[in-house]
């Protein structure tokens, strides 16, 4: 099946930038707010991986689904997760998308297709299959993206999920964000093989791309999404990137090679893409500045909204355990 031109249009490029600029700004703000002590939460920074979901999501609509992980605010924001609902949730407020009960590791927003956020390594994949099975049964043409990390490619759920998706030809795109680290352990210490090369073990296409190159990710995602929509089955994309920060906020990341990290941060994929947009004349400096200013304003509003919102009542402990409130 032909997926047509694999280069993003100018509009799509700007769209991608909008998403990654939001991810970058939101991450910087999150760390600032946590550092200031105004918020206490386990925070898994997605910085460095900003490009991947941005380039994937321009190939998706609000009707498409994603399942992501604790390190997933970038995936969610790229998919359109409302800022205010997100901030209120991570602040544990009743106005949060999960009424403050889920928190950062379980952010959920069905209207935008953010169906599951899991704190268990590998568990985004088996559930993504089920959502995609639903689409296959309904014939609604929707696609489900399962995001996961490089280290998750070593856990049983990855194997069972890719095999079932391939055998059932499910409309899923498995997107592995290879940031070279699983907590404090380097990927190469835990596997002899590239994640993308494991696709062959299931008879599905597997592609390794530069996750910091919006064009490369866009093309791979476009192919995979088209394949899924056409009913031709799942694909595996391994997007190579690098984790700018420690595993979790507070992690001193002494185990990460300083030079490698400095180099990655010096080549910030968001700033590189920004410069490229200006060079290629797709956007003017002030246009981008305006976008960034609007993002900052939106985040200001979201943070204020979140911190001004009330905390849930303890009665919430009895609600949402089952459909019926507990006595």
């Amino acid at each position, binding site marked *: 099946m032909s997926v047509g031109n694999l280069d993003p249009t100018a509009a799509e490029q700007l769209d991608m930038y909008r998403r990654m600029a939001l991810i970058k700004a939101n991450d910087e703000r999150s760390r600032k707010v946590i550092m200031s002590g105004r918020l206490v939460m386990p925070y898994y920074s997605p910085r460095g991986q900003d490009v991947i979901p941005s380039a994937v999501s321009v190939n998706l609509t609000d009707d498409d689904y994603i399942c992501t992980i604790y390190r997933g605010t970038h995936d969610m924001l790229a998919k359109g997760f409302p800022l205010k609902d997100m901030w209120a949730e991570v602040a544990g407020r009743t106005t949060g998308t999960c009424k403050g009960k889920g928190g950062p590791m379980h952010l959920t927003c069905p209207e935008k297709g953010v169906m599951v956020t899991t704190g268990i390594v590998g568990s985004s994949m088996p559930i993504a299959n089920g959502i995609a099975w639903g689409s296959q049964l309904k014939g609604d043409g929707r696609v489900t993206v399962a995001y996961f990390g490089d280290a998750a490619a070593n856990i049983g759920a990855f194997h069972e999920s890719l095999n079932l998706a391939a055998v059932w030809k499910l409309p899923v795109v498995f997107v592995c964000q290879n940031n070279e680290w699983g907590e404090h352990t380097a990927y190469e210490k835990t596997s002899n093989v590239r994640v993308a090369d494991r696709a062959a073990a299931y008879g599905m296409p597997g592609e390794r791309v530069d996750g910091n190159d919006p064009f490369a990710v866009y093309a791979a995602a476009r192919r995979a999404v088209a394949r899924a929509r056409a009913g031709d089955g799942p694909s595996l994309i391994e997007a190579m990137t690098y984790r700018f920060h420690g595993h979790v906020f507070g992690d001193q990341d002494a185990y990460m090679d300083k030079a490698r990290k400095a180099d990655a941060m010096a080549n910030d994929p968001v700033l590189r893409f920004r410069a490229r947009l200006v060079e290629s004349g797709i956007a003017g400096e002030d246009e981008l500045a305006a976008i960034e200013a609007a993002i900052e304003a939106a985040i200001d509003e979201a943070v204020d909204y979140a911190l001004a919102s009330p905390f849930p009542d303890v009665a919430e402990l009895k*609600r949402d355990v089952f459909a019926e409130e507990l006595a």
Partner: protein
Amino acid sequence: MAVSEKTKPAAEGAAARPAKVNILQAINAAMADAMAADDSVLVLGEDVADPEEGGVCGVTRGLSSRFGDHRVRSTPISEQAIIGAAIGASLVGFRPVAEIMLMNFTTVAMDMIVNHAAKLRFMSGGQTHVPIVIRTMTGTGFASGGQHCDYLEAWFAHTAGLKVVAPSSPRDAYGLMRSAIEDPDPVLFIENLPTYWLADEAPESGYRVPIGKANVLAEGSDVTIIAYARMIQEAAPAIARLAEAGISAELIDLRSIAPWDRAAVLASVAKTGRAMIVHEAVTPFGVGAEIAATLNEELFGRLKAPVKRLGGAFCPVPFSKPLETAFAPQTEDIFAAACALVSA
């Protein structure tokens, strides 16, 4: 699974239902009727479709032929993927009935069941919910040894967000399966292998047994015996023998373990003043502990004897026949324990 030879073609049951059916057929009929009534009901698991004989015991036989192999899917041996697929489909409007062949195999899918199916409603603040049924069979009696017979219901009852049922008759099996499929939350449906072929009064189509309601099988005034699943078959004869011995025993089939019917159990024990809980699971930290603790809390000072717990021996299920037989409570044990309670 050394029992395939016992299998009888079930299913079409839904169409023309005989006066008597066995539990296996009743479960099959309940799934068939639910699938006929609601297109969103799905079935998945190992060997569940008809090319694979509708399950090793034939519980799902006929369903894929009748409703299509898109709604009834045999899976690879991948329990995490099975439960994950059920959860995901349920998030977008389906009502999957997933089979984990034997209860011991839930151990390879506990993350999906406990961290996800049970918790997504709460963690999403009610934005999503997981209306799935997880069917699984277990039980001693077929010499299957240490990894094929465990009763692990206490684990799931200890998990907020899960419901757990364990029917002992064709009527209850049918009625509870219909209720489980319609339930908005995940339900673990525990089937007892040795009693699959127990035939009894056929349920009328559409019959329901509400989850959380126990069933008083025999009324009595001296002692209350609380049991479920196959233990009902061991307890019933004990009741008769107790009657001969002049002891009037009340038999309660719990049917639902989570939530369990506190009202019914408390009312009965308030009346008899003596209680015994019987289950096949090992006694320590079992379901009997929760019921005994509750009875003592609620009926403090009103009990005529300490609540008795009768469970499986505290060991893995042994293979050797005399050991396997001794492992689970038997009629004589129940009889003797009841006598001891009454004469205490």
